[in-house]
């Protein structure tokens, strides 16, 4: 078990912060959130294919971390933050499914008008030639499409390991599973991506 996991296991009884300690904690949390927020937004956006929805999920994760885990060691924040974020993404998918069932029950037209347009939500690259922008844009779109096809757990494991840089133990905490499961999900995700993206990137 690495340092993060060990720290995670023993620090649940930390003292409540007061006064100067609270100010210090606020600064530390601000730094952590500043560091993680942009990547978290893109990770959520890739999962739900909608920037506004992703923004709401990230905000909820930030508030959840501050409300429940601000007193924890800073080294624990990343896996805890991403645990909340992934729960938010899963809840979003469940709500979407329920919403569609309720819509059909009430006789509403369950059209595709709320399906996100991957072109509209794609990032706008900066500081490169048009050709480079186009190549990068197309490659990112291909990557997002491939990630969307992956099973949810594989996508989570891959994005947390590769995009956020969490170690296996951190991903296991975020995903509430064993480290062995993380390795399996990650390995399958990489192989699936190789199959799907190989023709573009070889």
């Amino acid at each position, binding site marked *: 078990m690495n340092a993060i996991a060990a720290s995670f296991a023993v620090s649940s009884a930390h003292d409540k912060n007061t006064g100067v300690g609270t100010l210090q904690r606020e600064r530390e949390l601000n730094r952590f959130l500043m560091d993680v927020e942009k990547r978290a937004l*893109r990770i959520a956006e890739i999962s739900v294919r909608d920037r506004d929805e992703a923004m709401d999920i990230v905000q909820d994760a930030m508030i959840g971390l501050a*409300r429940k885990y601000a007193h924890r060691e800073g080294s624990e924040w990343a896996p805890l933050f991403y645990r909340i974020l992934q729960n938010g993404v899963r809840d979003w998918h469940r*709500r979407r499914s329920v919403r569609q069932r*309720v819509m059909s029950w009430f006789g*509403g037209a369950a059209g595709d008008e709320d399906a996100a347009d991957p072109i509209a939500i794609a990032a*706008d690259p900066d500081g490169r030639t048009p050709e480079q922008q186009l190549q990068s844009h197309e490659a990112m779109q291909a990557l997002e499409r491939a990630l969307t096809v992956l099973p949810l757990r594989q996508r989570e494991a891959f994005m947390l390991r590769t995009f956020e840089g969490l170690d296996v133990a951190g991903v296991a905490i975020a995903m509430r599973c064993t480290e062995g499961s993380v390795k399996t999900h990650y*390995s399958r995700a990489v192989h699936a991506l*190789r199959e799907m993206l190989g023709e573009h990137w070889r």
Partner: protein
Amino acid sequence: MNDKDDMSDDERIARQTKELFDESVRGLDAETLSRLNRSRQKALAELKPGGGELRWLRWSPAVAAAVVAAAVVWRAGDLEQLPPDAASDFEMLLAGEELELLEDLEFYRWLALTAEEPDADDHVG
């Protein structure tokens, strides 16, 4: 292809996807960064005594329960048409803070009414 080749391919795909992802992160526009900043400030407000402007939402499940119950009564005549998993759907609605969905229900009710009265649109405007 041996294990060594597989490993290098895995690393390559991870590196390439990470570079693309980081590039898309750097490309986030100013408005998005501003919204992230506001979200962060809301989160930090939770650390202040009495902070957290969203605490009022704790009572929203009760509101959600009342509105969903009203919707069910409204559609009581169609109860025999409820899908088998309707109970879990409502449980899901009550467990979360689905105010947006509940607002949508009002729209669906209007939609159903206008569907039953084909001439209703003629009076708009």
